[in-house]
């Protein structure tokens, strides 16, 4: 019992002697961490106006963050009573190691085949990349859903990055009847594409006769646009093609089926199908 009281007394003496310093050290730590987080956020926002590459910006911000955290921890430890020289040496060693990993080894890590802002398709998900972390990628679909996709599954799957190249080809197929003016159809399609300001001059728009189908002649219009304009241009061209065909008097083909039936006045209306077929087969007129 006396032993425990002695221990308690020693502990209380220690607390009275060092308590205020420990408290101040804790305050420095908490305030320092809070201030550092705020500063990193502000720095990231400011740098986004100067440095467009998010990877470069991330390296700079994280490096500054590591240095600031190191200063805060060192200050807190020194305040508590640690040996300043040893603390500074330790903190510098750890900081250099972390910054070295960020700057030197980060480029060697497998990188994802897209960046924030790209439109990608991974598996069944199609959307815009909003951000990436070490573990997952945040993808926002066009109907507003947000998916967190593990980077592991992305790296093991086929990815379509619609923004990897600057341009993309628009493909519109139409089918016109066999009785329509094919040359006028091709000229109308080509004119619609050339007249649109977003359609690129090179490669030049092309029109192809693709197929002679049961319903009509399938004609394909192909042109290239900037990736960012792809969807709206495709929709607008489709609309303009419809109106241009109306103006030029070109009719679209519809699915149709020619039905032929043979009428014989002596066949009873109540006759079964077999009887009717037999009559038709045996009838000399048919």
């Amino acid at each position, binding site marked *: 019992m006396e032993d425990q009281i002695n221990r308690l007394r020693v502990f209380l003496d220690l607390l009275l002697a060092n308590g205020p310093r420990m408290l101040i050290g804790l305050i420095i730590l908490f305030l320092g961490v809070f201030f550092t987080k705020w500063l990193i956020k502000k720095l990231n926002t400011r740098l986004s106006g100067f440095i467009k590459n998010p990877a470069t910006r991330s390296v700079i911000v994280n490096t500054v963050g590591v240095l600031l955290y190191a200063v805060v921890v060192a200050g807190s430890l020194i305040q508590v009573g640690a040996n300043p020289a040893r603390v500074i040496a330790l903190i510098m060693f750890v900081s250099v190691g972390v910054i070295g990993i960020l700057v030197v080894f980060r480029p060697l890590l497998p990188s994802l085949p897209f960046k924030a802002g790209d439109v990608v398709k991974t598996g069944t998900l199609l959307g815009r990349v909003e951000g990436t972390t070490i573990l997952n990628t945040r993808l926002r679909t066009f109907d507003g859903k947000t998916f967190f996709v593990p980077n592991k599954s992305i790296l093991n799957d086929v990815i379509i990055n619609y923004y990897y190249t600057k341009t993309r080809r628009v493909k519109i197929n139409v089918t016109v009847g066999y009785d329509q003016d094919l040359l006028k159809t091709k000229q109308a399609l080509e004119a619609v594409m050339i007249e*649109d300001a977003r359609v690129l001059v090179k490669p030049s728009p092309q029109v192809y006769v693709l197929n002679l189908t049961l319903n009509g002649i399938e004609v394909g219009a192909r042109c290239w646009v900037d990736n960012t304009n792809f969807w709206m241009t495709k929709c607008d061209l489709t609309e303009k093609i419809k109106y241009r065909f109306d103006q030029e008097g070109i009719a679209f083909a519809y699915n149709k089926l020619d039905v032929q039936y043979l009428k014989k006045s002596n066949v009873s209306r109540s006759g079964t199908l077999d009887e009717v077929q037999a009559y038709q087969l045996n009838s000399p007129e048919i």
Partner: protein
Amino acid sequence: MKIAQGMALIGEKWVAKPKEFRVQYQKLKSSELVTEYTPGLEDAGLDSDVTAWRYAWKLHMSTRSESRKVQADELINIRVVDECNNPVAYYVTGENQIFNPK
């Protein structure tokens, strides 16, 4: 003639390719009719004639009036022009179109 020259000739003589579109309209300012553009001449134009015509139509629906006289906030003679101020044919009819002609 080289192909590039031929293509340039086709682009110049057969099918004109505008660069941008604006909606041109007139309105009353201090009892005088003034011609204005949207987007403004100092701003970038629209890159789609379909968008421009739809915009023109919405402006017409928003500001039209039944009166024969031009009202204060009414936009009249609304049409789409290209960067050279040439009227652009309405893609629906293939002809020049003016909304709310007065």
